[in-house]
């Protein structure tokens, strides 16, 4: 570094020798700091976060803000001491692996893969050296993302929420609302790596609750319309969405369809009742994305991903929308009202 040498040169020799002993480190730190303040910001290699998103920036907006909050908690701010390079799959999850490879090829310091197992797995397949922080709903071990939660090993760690595990609870809550009905529809994204396990759980839950399930599959937006129409036609008690980021990121669309078709619906994301849907039950995505940001910051500071245990966001939140309920001529039982984390009136 030229500037540092220049500074060292005009330090009187005697002083340099005097500071040789104990204070050498301080001295270097001092000149280092001085040098850092002299060198223009752009000359320093600012770390780059490669951010792999399965959707568009608009759909990720609330998640991104939570992520940035987490980064800030670790002392990083985009543009100040870190830059973020984004790759958006625009809902086409098949593009994720190539986007991940693209990021890995552009020499990012760290890859952030939020928004589900597909993103995490795409990132994992793209690099075995660049640290990866993932954010997902399912069980990272079962999905083959990591071998151990406490010691993830390898180059990736991250945050998981309990969204996938609690799919069956959504069925239970829906039944609470529609106790008179035995038939419920379940929405599954067949492209989701967690679809099989969720479907199995839901069937087990339906059996123990004495319910019949009609499984509807949708993996594109175009299929949503037909799905709600089918539920409406079959007079099912309600539609229970399995946990899937593709669904979660389209909460507004789903809420609009549900209210148009008059279908009592529950999804994983709070965005759904906030957009006029009936209710939601799932992990707190704000927390999970926030912790993703914190982890990203800690890795930028030099911690190894293998030393950071996979964090589980334990908070599961129940949101209910009374307006939607009254529009559907439904009455929430007091058990749900008292359990709700937020009641939208």
């Amino acid at each position: 570094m030229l500037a540092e040498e220049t500074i060292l040169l005009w330090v009187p020799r005697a002083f340099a020798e005097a500071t040789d002993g104990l204070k050498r480190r301080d001295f270097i730190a001092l000149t280092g700091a001085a040098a850092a303040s002299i060198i223009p910001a752009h000359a320093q290699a600012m770390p780059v976060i490669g951010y792999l998103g399965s959707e568009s920036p608009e759909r990720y907006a609330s998640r991104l803000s939570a992520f940035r909050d987490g980064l800030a908690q670790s002392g990083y701010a985009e543009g100040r001491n870190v830059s973020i390079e984004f790759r958006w799959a625009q809902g086409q999850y098949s593009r994720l692996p190539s986007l991940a490879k693209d990021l890995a090829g552009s020499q990012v310091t760290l890859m952030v893969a939020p928004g589900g197992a597909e993103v995490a797995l795409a990132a994992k397949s793209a690099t075995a050296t660049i640290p990866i922080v993932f954010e997902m709903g399912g069980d990272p071990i079962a999905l083959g993302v990591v071998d151990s939660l406490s010691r993830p090993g390898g180059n990736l760690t991250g945050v998981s929420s309990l969204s996938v595990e609690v799919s069956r609870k959504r069925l239970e809550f829906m039944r609470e609302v529609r106790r008179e009905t035995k038939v419920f529809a379940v929405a599954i994204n067949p492209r989701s790596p967690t679809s099989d396990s969720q479907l199995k759980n839901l069937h087990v839950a339906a059996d123990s609750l004495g319910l019949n399930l009609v499984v509807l599959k949708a993996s594109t937006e175009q299929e949503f319309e037909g799905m709600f129409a089918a539920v409406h036609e079959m007079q099912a008690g309600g539609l229970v969405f399995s946990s899937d980021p593709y669904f979660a990121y389209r909460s507004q669309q789903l809420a609009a369809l549900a209210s148009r078709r008059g279908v009592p619906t529950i999804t994983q994301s709070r965005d759904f009742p906030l957009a006029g849907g009936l209710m939601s039950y799932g992990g707190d995505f704000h927390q999970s994305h926030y912790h993703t940001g914190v982890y990203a910051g800690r890795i930028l500071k030099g911690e190894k991903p293998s030393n950071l245990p996979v964090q589980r966001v334990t908070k599961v939140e129940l949101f209910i929308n009374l307006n939607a309920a009254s529009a559907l001529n439904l009455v929430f039982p007091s058990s749900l009202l008292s359990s709700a984390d937020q009641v939208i009136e």
Partner: protein
Amino acid sequence: MTAKAVVARATEMSKATTPRSSLFLKYFSTLFAAAVIPLLIAGGSEAWFGYRDQRARLNDLLDAEARLAAEKIADFIEGIRDQLGWTVQLPWSDNPGDRRRLDALRLLHQAPAVESLSLVDGKGKERLFVSRIGLNRIEGGDDHSTKPAVIGARSDRIWFGPVTFQDGSEPFMTIAIAGTRAAAGVAVAEVNLKFIWEVVSGIRVGRTGEAFVLDRPGRLVAHPDIGLVLQADEAAQRPLQALRAAILTRSGQAAAGQDIAGNMVMAAMAPIPGLDWSVIVTQPLAEAFGPIYTALWRTGVLLIAGAVLAAILAYWMTQRMVGPIRVLEDGVARIGAGQFEHRINLATSDEFERLATRFNEMATELSVSQERSERINRLKRFLAPQVAELIERSGDDQVLDGRRVEVVAVFCDLRGFTAFSVRAEPETVIRVLREYYDALETVVSDHGATLINFFGDGAMILFNAPVSCVDPAFRAVGMARAMQKSMQGHLANWRALDDRLGFGVGLAMGPATVGRIGSQGRLHYTAIGNVVNLASRLCSSAEDSEILIDRVAASAIGSEIALVELDPRTLKGFDQPVPVFAVATDLAARSKI
């Protein structure tokens, strides 16, 4: 000795005899000790007492923090316990209705750490199960009576299970609580201990200190860095167990040890009652003893500043001392070397100046005294010792100044000495002359006359100058007679060498100019005037053993000494024949016969 040589010698002396450093060292060590030793004592005691106080304060602080932290965590558990307590207040009936389920759901809502809750009736059957993750069960009917949680709660009212790490990561614990009546059954809750993080991370000990919780086997239950808990790595947590062991060996005291990252910390511990957990609070050693380090730094800086100040003061003081001393030394050396006109210039207005004044006075005295002794040495060459002493005592040599005075001039010489000196060996000539001079000097000195000088075998003697005396003519004749007497004794021996040797004296009285004459290098006291010529001619004219006197002297003597008037003689340089008198002596009479 020239002035330059004096200075050279003086500096040489000062170089050889003044070890300048010793004074400096004495001053420096004294001042240094005066400044530094009190500082050292003050600093040392400050450090020692500061350390003790800080140690005691640290004990109190960490102890209080540990208790506070333990209380907070106990409150957390207590909160869950209170919530659970509500569910076991009433005995189970066969058909409990929906109220129990609502209570249980409300509990989940109130206590976020509780992940699931099962309510067991008095017979040990599970009547209700609610969960955040799994499906709720009503009247499940499973027999839980043999489960440790139910047995433990039934015997002790409350039971805490061991800490388990779900999927090897998330810490969980079962808490079971029994109602006051057996029929009220038991509530068994799965508690996610990650929620203690909120309590633990909120605890700040000092600036950077922290608190963490170990369960009975020493596993980390809660830590501000939740990752350490989730890692559930018992090997990595060994330092914390060692820290706990270290605290246990010094009951009631804070102990030093390493935290999980290997940093040295001070730590104190408090138990959480009922749980057998330990809350340990730590503070980095550097921060804990920061005030002491600050004090030590301060003391160190003061010590250095004191030492520098002492050194500067010592140097200044020593310079103040050494400077005048060197001037004095140099001056004294010059004066000692004879440069009496040298003056020591010191204006320090203290003892040094006084000393310099004394030295200057001494130099003046020395100079005066040396001048006097030089003068006297000069006088002694032509004055009789008594006269010289007299002048020396009076300290006044004005008597030697030129003036006109009535003197008696006496001349004497050996007859036939020139012929003798040609024939005889030089050693013999010199020996004879020495005996002759010695004898003359003795006689002159005995009579208080002034021996002006010797010239070959002759000598000139003055009376009444430079020191006046009473009756000079009489004294002069007395001396001439004594000379003759002494010389005739010697001549008796010398005639064995040459029988033509003899001794004659002539004296005359009259005014003459007397005083010091001569150049700077050769100074004489002498008399000039007719009387001197006359005395000299009379001496030349005198026979052996004869003492010739002019008329003035003869008339001054009068009849006290028998004089014989001889025929006037024609003397060289005198136009008229000069009346001549001879002192009647036995010898003269005899030679005339």
